[in-house]
């Protein structure tokens, strides 16, 4: 177990190195630089050069890359070009909002997917299964950038039940969490259905019935415990989808999270900020996958790390 963790954490470092390198060079390929955007078209060439020197952007790219890596090794993500505040501070301010949104979305997804998936598997090809399939197809096909505004129009503007945007109490979280969680719910409910159907055909389920156990125990203890094992992996992988979905959802709801910070960074060519955001997102993704594998081993006694 310990050796496994060490191996996985070393792998994490390798992945992060790859991500940092890729992002560093890709972002410099985007036309325009922060100085143009900060000073505008009318600025004098001399002023632009002065600012470039001040920000260290005049140096050769390889040189900038090496010094960025060096700072990174000391845990320094650099300063945001515009605000001149440490990138780590800016990310730290926004990160909790994204985590809140993701947890909310995941809760929405599970609350929708578990009942839908279980009901569908218990009465496959019945009308409830059909209805659940329809809901799932809609959930997967409807893009966040359409669902979000529609929810706002219906629940905030027409009905006036929920606030339009910005972070606040629980009522502020509901619409963004539904927007972000629906696609995941749709996917998960189909997964849970398929997995549970397969498990219900296993002989240990027949045996559980032969032992005289009530259906409640047969389904919720013996079947579901097995059926949810593969679902754990899917949930872990879906965190990546949630993170990228969060960028759009945060923009729609004006949610002050990592996604909207990243977008701001890209618009203003704020190199250190973009690199920092992506580095954090990649780290979260890799760590969640590590946690997923640990959870899998915990849920399935046949798997040892």
């Amino acid at each position, binding site marked *: 177990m310990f050796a496994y963790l060490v191996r996985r954490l070393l792998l994490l470092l390798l992945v992060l190195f790859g991500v940092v390198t890729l992002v560093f060079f890709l972002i410099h390929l985007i036309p325009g630089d922060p100085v143009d955007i900060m000073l505008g078209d009318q600025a004098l060439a001399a002023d632009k050069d002065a600012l470039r020197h001040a920000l260290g952007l005049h140096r050769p790219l390889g040189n900038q890359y090496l010094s960025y890596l060096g700072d990174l090794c000391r845990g320094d993500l650099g300063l945001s070009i515009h605000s001149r505040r440490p990138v780590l501070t800016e990310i730290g301010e926004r990160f909790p909002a994204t985590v809140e949104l993701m947890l909310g979305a995941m809760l929405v997804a599970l609350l929708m997917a578990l009942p839908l998936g279980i009901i569908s598997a218990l009465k496959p090809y019945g009308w409830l299964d059909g209805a659940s399939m329809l809901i799932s197809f809609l959930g997967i096909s409807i893009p966040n950038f359409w669902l979000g505004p529609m929810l706002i129009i219906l629940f905030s503007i027409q009905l006036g039940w929920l606030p339009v945007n910005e972070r606040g109490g629980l009522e502020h979280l509901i619409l963004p969490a539904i927007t972000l969680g629906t696609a995941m719910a749709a996917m998960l409910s189909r997964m849970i259905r398929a997995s549970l159907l397969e498990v219900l055909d*296993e002989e240990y389920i027949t045996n559980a019935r032969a032992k*005289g156990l009530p259906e409640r125990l047969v389904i919720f203890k*013996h079947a579901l415990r*097995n059926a949810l094992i593969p679902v754990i992996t899917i949930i872990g992988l879906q965190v990546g989808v949630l993170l990228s979905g969060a960028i759009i959802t945060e923009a729609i709801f004006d949610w002050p999270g990592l996604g909207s910070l990243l977008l701001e960074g890209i618009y203003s060519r704020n190199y250190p900020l973009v690199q920092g955001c992506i580095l954090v997102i990649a780290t979260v993704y890799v760590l969640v996958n590590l946690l997923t594998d640990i959870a899998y081993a915990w849920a399935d*006694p046949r798997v040892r790390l």
Partner: protein
Amino acid sequence: MTASEPLLEIRDLKIRFQGEAGPLNILQGVDLKLLAGETVGLVGASGSGKSVTAQAILGLLKRPPLLEISGQILYEGSDLVTMSAGQLRQVRGRRIAYIFQEPMSALNPVFTVGEQIAEMVVLHEGLGRRSALNRAADLFAEVGLPDPRRRLNNYPHELSGGQRQRVMIAMALSCSPQILIADEPTTALDVTIQAQILRLLKRLQVERRMALLFITHDLRVMAEIADRLAVMQAGRIVEEAGIEALFHAPQHAYTRQLLTLIPGRGGGRVVP
């Protein structure tokens, strides 16, 4: 209950399954009696309907493929075919227990074997968890599992094939049933282990005075364990007789054919 009155009686059991090309007649009128304390062997080729008959007793057949079931399965005067789900659960595991062919697939991989036995005892006898686990450990000792206390915390995959089948037997015995149905319980095991499991089943059946319905395609196994044999072919019982009579004077052509299949016998006589 007198010795002549059957403990379990199957009358004209007919079962139809939904097949790909239409309904299939799986059982075409099966009659079978099981007396208290006796061992009846149900023999036949695979697909002859042995397992379907056995699973029908406890209402374990799934719909689909189950399409239609008619006839009676009488246990203590009640018909198991028409019994309510709640009443049937009182019979399952408690009065009539079932041992599956493949213990690896019949045991739930994510629960310890101790838990899988204890949950049954808790449910049927209202014992606390601790006493139920103690019962499981005692049963493990009874079926000859080494180090029974430690076995409680093992998962199925941590045991050998023979050990797993002993766990299945312990599970079946856990609520002291009157009837034990064993569906090819030795088929998935090594030959040496097969003999051990057979002897164990026979010993337990005698000690606990249970009726045993033993299903197999292997007549040799029957010679060692059964009092009576019922031979099945294509959804019917074609011959039913005491073990001596059946081995020495088989009446039905199919039975004679099965007997010639026993290695080293070649159609001659065998001493059961």
